[in-house]
Structures are given as C-alpha cells and as structure tokens.
C-alpha cells in the first residue's frame, strides 16, 4: 500500500514537472539574454490552447505540439516588438501580454467551439505517452548544447552580461535577444502543449495556474543556472504531485481543506525563498 503510494507520487512528480521544465528551459534563454520574462504564463496558455484545438481538429498530437510552439513564438514576437523595438519595460509588456492572452482565449474559444473557455477533449486513444518525454529530452539536450557549446549561446549570454562587448565585435545584441525570446516562447509553448494534451485531455480556462511564474521563481532561485533550475523545477513538480495525491486521499482531504492543499506549490515557492539561501547571480544587464 505504502509502496504503491510512493511509486504513484514519484511517477506523478515526473508528470507534473514536465511543463515546468519546459517553461524553465524557455525562461532561461530569455533571462540569460537580459530580457526579464514574466509572460511565460501567457506562452504556456497559448501553447495549451493551440495544442488542444489543433490536435482536436487534425487528430495528430505531433502537429498539435508543433502548432503550440509556433503560435507561442508568434505571441513572443509581440513581446519582442514592444520591449526590444519600442523600448517599453519588459515587466509591463509581460503583464499586458498575460492579460491579452487571458482575454483572447475565451473569446476565440467562444467563436470556434461555442464554449465558455474549454475545448472539447481530444481522442484519448491517440495519446502517446512517450512523446512529451522524448520532446523534453531533445529540448533539454538542445538547450544545453546551444547555450554552452555554440558561439550563438556565448553571444546570447553576453547580450545579458555586457552588451558593449557584443557590440564591439559587430554583433547587434538586440538581434540575439530577439532570437532568444523567440526560442523561449517556442519552448514554453511546447510546455503548454504538454499541459493540455498529456496532463489532461482538453484545454480548461487558466489551466497553467501560475506555472509560468513558478518556473521563473525556479530560475531565479537557481541563480540563473540551467542545470540547477531544472532540478528546482523537479522539486516544484514534486510539490504539485503532492498536492494532487493529498487531495485524492480521503483521510487527509477530510482533515485539511482543499484550498490549503492547493496552496502547496505557491507556499513552497515562498518558503523556499524564505528559508533557502538563493544563489543571487543575475545576468548583469537584466532588465
């Protein structure tokens, strides 16, 4: 009995950390290139909605993932135009993008599906369980390779650390930032697709439930290091798994109110910020 609970908990930890890991991975690129990114939430939502509706209409999940990434990258362009081209503050633009997506999705789903926000569920037979894990492994490998082994990665990091150095060798830091944010949106969109096609079988309103912000917290917490950030997001995934397990447990859910159990991931983030010494090592020109 106890064994099976632990195995369930571990399995569900991996399941719940998938979208977080995608979002952390995406956020890493944007933050490292010196663009503060709080619209991870928006990219997750866009990805989730696009993946759910494209897989519903086409019947193939892979197409859904691809569409989610591309659509999120398109929304990333809005972010880029306003922060990089028009020089608005990234936090303000990020907040506005979050609002835009929260308002846009219900209206789109009303005119497409005639529903109040959720999409019809996709055919469960098509759900292919190894797909998201494969995509995650490919993404993480690619992310490590890109950021540590390529010239592009070095230049991307310098856009966040010292723009002047980049300009002096004739590379426009804005172009590197633009590419990094687009990549960030694409990867985070994939995470959204995991959310709506793997963790559940349809899109429901605001289903990202703050995961974008949790991913950002994981990144800040890990001192902007990708390896540590992925481990931290595994921990936050554990908190979410714990929350789900506790809620389904009769004995515990009758004693502790559901609202407190739902608080666990957010409270864990706050407690982690309070009790653990965060590595404070932000990119020098992060703004």
């Amino acid at each position, binding site marked *: 009995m106890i064994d099976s609970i632990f195995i369930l908990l571990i399995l569900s930890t991996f399941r719940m950390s998938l979208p977080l890991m995608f979002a952390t991975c995406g956020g890493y690129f944007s933050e490292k290139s010196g663009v503060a990114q*709080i619209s991870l939430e928006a990219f997750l939502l866009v990805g989730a909605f696009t993946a759910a509706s494209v897989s519903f209409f086409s019947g193939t999940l892979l197409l859904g993932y691809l569409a989610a990434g591309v659509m999120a990258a398109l929304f990333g362009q*809005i972010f880029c135009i*306003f922060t990089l081209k*028009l*020089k*608005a*503050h990234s*936090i*303000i*633009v990020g*907040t*506005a*993008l979050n*609002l*835009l997506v*929260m*308002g*846009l999705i*219900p*209206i789109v789903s*009303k*005119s497409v599906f005639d529903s*109040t926000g959720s999409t019809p569920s996709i055919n469960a037979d098509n759900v292919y369980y190894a797909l998201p894990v494969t995509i995650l492994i490919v993404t993480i490998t690619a992310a490590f390779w890109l950021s540590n082994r390529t010239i592009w990665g070095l230049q991307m990091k310098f856009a966040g650390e010292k723009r002047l150095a980049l300009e002096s060798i004739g590379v426009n830091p804005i172009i590197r930032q633009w590419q990094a944010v687009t990549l960030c949106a694409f990867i985070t969109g994939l995470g959204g697709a995991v959310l709506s096609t793997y963790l559940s079988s349809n899109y429901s309103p605001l289903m990202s439930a*703050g995961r974008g*912000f949790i991913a*950002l*917290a994981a990144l*800040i917490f890990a001192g902007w290091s990708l390896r540590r950030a992925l481990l931290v997001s595994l921990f936050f995934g554990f908190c979410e798994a714990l929350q789900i397990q506790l809620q389904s447990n009769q004995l515990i859910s009758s004693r502790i*109110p*559901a*609202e*407190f159990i*739902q*608080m666990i991931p*957010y*409270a864990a*983030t*706050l407690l982690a*910020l*309070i009790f653990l010494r*965060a590595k*404070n090592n932000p990119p020098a020109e992060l703004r």
Partner: protein
Amino acid sequence: MKKAAPIIGLIVGIALACLLALFFRENPLHVLKVLLTSSYNSKFDFGLTLFYTTCLIFSGLAFSIPMKAGLFHIGAEGQIIFSAVVAAYLGHVLPFDTSFSILLLCVLTALAGFLAAYVIALLKLYRQAHEVVVAIMLNFILSAFATWFTINRLQNPNSQNPETHLIQPSFQFLNNDFLKVYFEQSAVSSFFLVAILFCIVLFILEQKTLWGLQIRAYGSNPLAARRLQISDFKILTISLGLAGVCSALVGLTEVLGNTFQFKIGFSPQYGFLGIAVALLARNNFLGIIASAFLMASLHKGASDLDLETKFLTRDFSLILQAIIIFSVASSYYFFNYRFKKKVKLD
C-alpha cells in the same frame, strides 16, 4: 507634446481593440459606440462608472507608489481580496457601539493590507527575493485563503453563491449617503471623495516632503540613494506599505460601500487594471484621477459588450487593457524619437 503621448497611445489602443473586434465578426463601430456611451446611459450607470473609478484610483495608486521607488508591485490583486475578506469578517463580528468601531474596522482592514504588502518588502530586504515573483505567489495564496475562509467560516446561509454574511446593518451606514442617493442607489459611495483626497494628499507628500524626495531619489538611482544614507528599509516600508493600504481601500470600497459582503470573484482584476491606470497617468498622482475615470468608463463599456454583442464576452475588457498598456507604454518611444529628430534638424 511629450506629455500628450499617453493620450494618443490610448486613442490608438482603443482603435486597435475595435479593429480586433472585426476578427470576431462584430461591427467595430458598434463596439466603439458601446464602449464609449454605456457609462452615460443613466444616472445608475454613471454611478457604477464612478464606483469603478474609485477602485481604479486606489489600485492605480497601489501600483504607482512603489513604482516611484523603482519597484514593480503587481501583488495588489491578492491584497484587495484579502482585505475585503478581513473587512467582511470584522463587519460581521465587531460589536457596534459608537462610530469608533467603524474607525476600528477601517484601521484594522488597512493594517491587513499593509501587512500583506509588507511580506513582499521583508522578503526583498532580507532575502533579496524578486518582488514580482513574491507578489504573484502571494496573490495565489491570499486568494486561496480568502476562498477557504469564506466558504468554511463566513458562508451566507441564505445564498447559493460563495459569499459571506452581510455586515451588520449599523455598518451599512453608507447605504444612504448623498452620492448613493443621488445616483439612484448605484454602487458609488463617499469612498469616491476619499479616493480623490488620497490622490491630492499623496501628490503633496510626494512633492513637498523629504520622504517623497527620498523615495523618488531611491527610484531613480538606488546606489546613489544608499550613499546618501537613505535606508532601503525605510523606502520599502513606506512605499509598499502605502500601496498595501491603498489596496485595502479597494476592499473597503467594495465591502462598506457597495455590496456589504465579500463575494468570491468580485474583483475584475482591479490589481492589474491599476497598472494600466498608472501607466496612462505617467505615474502622476493627480493624473491618476483622470486616467482612472477613463479606464473605468472603458471597463464599464467592455462589460456591457457581453449583452450587446454576440461573440464578445466580458473578457474583452482584459484585451482592451492589454492593448492600451501596449500602446501607451510604446507611445513614449515614438515621441522621444520624434523629439530627437527635430532637435537634429534645428
């Protein structure tokens, strides 16, 4: 010309939002008409607009005050909900003897808002935590707490909806205040005057006192401010604390002035609307009055779109805010650009 930038940004934003309506098979002119006129249909509607204005002034201040110190305070939403629950609870349990208990209720609610905001300041001071992340997490935690408290401790037995008891009749003194009577029992109350007073007082405090100067100095250059021995502790306490009090006043406006109870989901994201209000006013405390009124009429219009059109829901209000924030935030770029060019030509 530079001062007009936000207004032109606003106009462009409204135009863009109406064009967006084309995608959803709506007539943009009809949308524009609903947006612009629905606040003035009747006295009752206008009162509702003034009520939104009150809330938006306070939430705009809650974003704007920390902004002066260079802090992004997006935790107003959680503080609003938390303080509204506290106000509803106190209004239910406090013994009513004199007008003193009304004062006590207001002070305790403001204190609740202050404390909720102060958590952000403490974490930033002692743990160097990023204020945005802490604020967002607090938003989730505080609203979950409010939901639990409402359903399990204060649920109104006469209602199917998740809402609290009405506060005691003697606390409902604003039911017959002159603004409410004039606007045919609409949502507006004397808190509207309090809001305007707050803006004026804060404007004077900011311009004429040492604290205001220190906060502005800290906002424009924290390193220099530290050299001048302006303590981080003081600046964060004052700016975030005042922001928390402003958020609490939104809760009080709702509970003491409008519904006399706490309803889950009463706030149409006032905390985030406040960002648009503060941006539109270019962080000027007096400008917030005007920009809050503008945003309130747009919000009133957008929530009427639900009834007036087929495909647009009240979520259109969120889109409208987002587009306005985008266009206002980027309008500065165009005007700075133009200004520089002119200088070169001369």
